[in-house]
Structure formats: C-alpha cells, structure tokens
C-alpha cells in the first residue's frame, strides 16, 4: 500500500466526478426538502431515498470496468488492485455517506426554515436509526460494491436481482425448516407462534447481528479485491 497512490486515486476521482456528485447531492437535498415539507416526520422515506442513492453509487465507482477500452485505462492506472479497492471503499463508505448526510441535513434545514416561516411546526422526527440498521445498510452497500465489479452491465439491477433471488431461496428454506420442525418436533399442544418467536429472538442478539454484518462486509470487500485482481481486459 502506497499512500501517495491512494492520494492520487482520490485526486483523480474528484477531478473526474465532483460535478456529478454535486448534482446528485443537490437532487437529494431537493427531494428531502419537498418530502419533509409534505410529511414533516417521515424519516423512513428519507433514509430509503438516501439508501437508493448509496446503492447506485458503486456502479459509478467502477463504471470504467464495464467498457473494453475504459477497462484497459482503469487497470493500467499505476496503483495496485488493493489501493484501487481501498480507495473506492473509503469513497463509498465515508465520502459518499458523509455527502448524503450533509445534503440530507441541508434539505432538512431548509425545510425546517421554510415551515417555520410559514407558521407551521418545524421538522420533528420521533424515530432514529439503530446501530444494527446502520450496519445493515453498510453491509448491503458492500454487496452492491462487489456486484459492481462482478457484473459487466446494469450492475445495480443485476446485484438486486441476484440478492433477491438468493434471499428468497434462504427465506423459503428457513420457512421450510420451521414447517418441518413444526410437524416433526413441536408437541401438538405447544403454541406454534411462541415456539418460532422464541427460537428466532434467542438465537440473534444485537451484538451477534452486528458481528455477522461486519463479517459480511469483509467478505464482500475481500471478494471485490479478488475479483479486481483477476479481471482481464
């Protein structure tokens, strides 16, 4: 790892992308402003919008890998594969998240000001994000990050499709297991719902969820590095 190469990669990114980023952040701020003035306490909607922006972002980070000549250009940049992946991890997890947060706050602040001036109550959220939800968001981001290297085109949609398919299979298998357990193991006089609920809540504490999500992130970023390393042009 060479800090100078990483610095140069950041510099190149900002020279190439600052206008697009500013435009996207601006759109987010406008959406936040209008959404908040319409429904002053709908934090979940804002998180959903910001999450969509975040999930689409990795496709742009690795867009050069999706064309023949641009792929040669990207792979020939004098920085190692690990430096390229690390730079993009920081861009996605720190820079872009901060950008989204700042412009969300800007949209919220303007909405608050607008509503106060119009004589309404200001913005007042009664919900907040838990640590597990934040980690889940970052883990999903890591999955889209890998998808943007793994797939060759329409990477966000492809990642979404494949993850939904895998998710559906897992949920089906899980449901099937519970159903078989219900038939084979649960005494006939036991309350089925109580059994399922206690099983799932005991097995997963919040800490173990966070650890699993962290491992998921490491897994996807590790796979991304390996995928980039084996990418040919």
């Amino acid at each position: 790892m060479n800090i100078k190469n990483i610095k140069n990669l950041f510099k190149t990114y900002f020279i190439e992308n600052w206008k697009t980023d500013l435009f996207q952040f601006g759109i987010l701020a406008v959406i936040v402003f209008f959404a908040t003035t319409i429904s002053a306490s709908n934090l979940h909607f804002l998180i959903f919008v910001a999450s969509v922006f975040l999930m689409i972002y990795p496709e742009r980070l690795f867009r050069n890998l999706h064309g023949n000549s641009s792929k040669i250009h990207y792979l020939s940049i004098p920085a190692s594969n690990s430096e390229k992946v690390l730079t993009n991890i920081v861009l996605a997890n720190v820079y872009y998240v901060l950008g989204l947060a700042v412009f969300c706050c800007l949209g919220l602040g303007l909405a608050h000001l607008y509503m106060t001036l119009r004589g309404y109550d200001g913005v007042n959220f009664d919900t907040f994000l838990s640590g597990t939800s934040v980690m889940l968001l970052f883990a999903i981001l890591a999955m889209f990050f890998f998808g943007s290297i793994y797939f060759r085109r329409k990477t966000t949609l492809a990642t979404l499709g494949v993850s939904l398919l895998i998710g559906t299979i897992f949920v089906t298998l899980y449901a099937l297991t519970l159903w078989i357990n219900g038939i084979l193991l649960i005494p006939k006089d036991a309350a089925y719902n109580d059994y399922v609920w206690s099983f799932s809540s005991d097995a997963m504490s919040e800490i173990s969820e966070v650890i699993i999500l962290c491992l998921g992130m490491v897994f996807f970023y590790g796979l991304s590095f390996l995928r980039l390393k084996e990418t040919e042009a």
Partner: protein
Amino acid sequence: MVQLENIQFGYVKSRPLFKDLSLTMEPGHIYGLLGKNGAGKTTLLKIMTGLRFPDGGTVTVLNNNAPLRKAEGLQNLYFLQEEMYVPHLKVADFVKAYAPFYPNFNHEQFAEYMHELELDQEAGYMDKLSHGQKKKVLIAFALATNTKILIMDEPTNGLDIPSKSVFRKLMASAADESRLVIISTHQVRDLHSLIDMVAILDNGHMLLNASTYEITEKLLFDVDDTKSSEGKVFYTEENPRGNYQVKENVNHIDSNLDLEMLFNAAIINKNEIANLFK
C-alpha cells in the same frame, strides 16, 4: 526489460493463440511488432502489460511479474491502446488527474509535444475531440510520462499525414538508451524509418526478432537484380519501377529495409527465414 518465457495463451482452450512463445526485449530500441490480422499482436501487448494472464509461462516486465499489475511496474510502463478511452475532462484536467501517477512526467515536454502536434491544452472536452485529436493528446501524454517502457498499438491510425511525420519526429526525440518502445502496427510505411528492431508474430510463435542491421546484413532488398543476382530469392513483387525482391544477402551488400517486403517474405518462407536468423 521485457521477458516472455514459454507463453501459452488462447481465448479458446482448443485453439491456442500462443504456443511456447518466448521473447526478450531490451531497452534502447524501438521494436516494430508485426503480424497478420488475428495473429495476436494486441493480445501479446496486453500480456506484457498485465491486462491478460497467460495460461502458462512467465511474463517479467521491469523485474515484476506482469499479471500482478504492481504499481511500481505500471508507473514505468505506458500502454497507448488502439481503441482509446478518454474521460469527460479537458486536457489540462486530464493531465492534473493522471500525471501524478507517473513520477517522471514532464509538464514542459507535454506542452511542447502538444504544440508540435498543433493541439491546445485549453481546447474543449477530450471526449468531444476527433479520433485523431484524441490520439494526439494521448501520444503527447504517453511521451511526457517518460516511462521506461512505452507500448503503442497502431499509434498512427487516425493521424493525418503531417501528424504522422511529427509523430516520427517526436518518437525519435523521445527514444533513448534507457527506454524501450514497442509499436504494433500494420502501417509499416509510417514507421519504417523509426524502428530498429523487428519482431514478426506468426501462428503463435515469434517468426523473427532481429535488428534492422542484422536483417539488412542477411537479406538484400533489391530491384531487378540491380545490386546482385546472387542469393536465394524469398519474395518478388511486381512494381511499375521493376521487380522488387527480397533475397539472401550472400555478398553483404547494403540495402534499404522494406518492412512490407520483409513481412511478406517472412510469412511465405517461414522456415527459411527462421533458420537464417537463428
């Protein structure tokens, strides 16, 4: 500087493109890499730059294993591809973005090359330039990087006639004892005065890898037996000026190398030419 040993490669396993291909290229030369369409010239360049991984054999470039694509290796190697990619940036911003990756990049040289190629650094966005102009910007950039290895795939494609001669002039001035330049091309007449080493790729092997001096020592490029009637004739081509011939240079007579004639002679007389240059 560039060493390929027993390279095996194929896009389809049943049809290998390279079979035990070995090649060594040393600094201080401008190599002309020639071959028929589909011979694998671009693939060979990609293998050298670590963009393609061989199925077997080793590729060592500047003491680095090329497929690892290490930053130290890439800093000293510039690959100008035929189908260029240019980002949506002005030339000055492109230089700001990419020059820092090359420790020996010289901004004054770049400005000078741009001037020679009649380009303006403040001209519009690079992706809006014509094909030839894009190529000129990238040629100027490539030369200004001062990398130890410069690899160019069809660099004169798309250049207008005056630019081709400027290109030759710039290449000649940029070449030095520490630098290796590899040019893959079909436009041999554009570069015949430039290259001093000729490598001909054919049927998965290097058919020829020799200096222009060695070639003219062993082969005579003659018209109508003007210089000599001795030696085996490898290739003849009718021309309004007479019959152009490539023949064995038994009497070591000086002649001017004609790359097109050499290529045709080598392709037709593979074994004889290979044996002659063993």
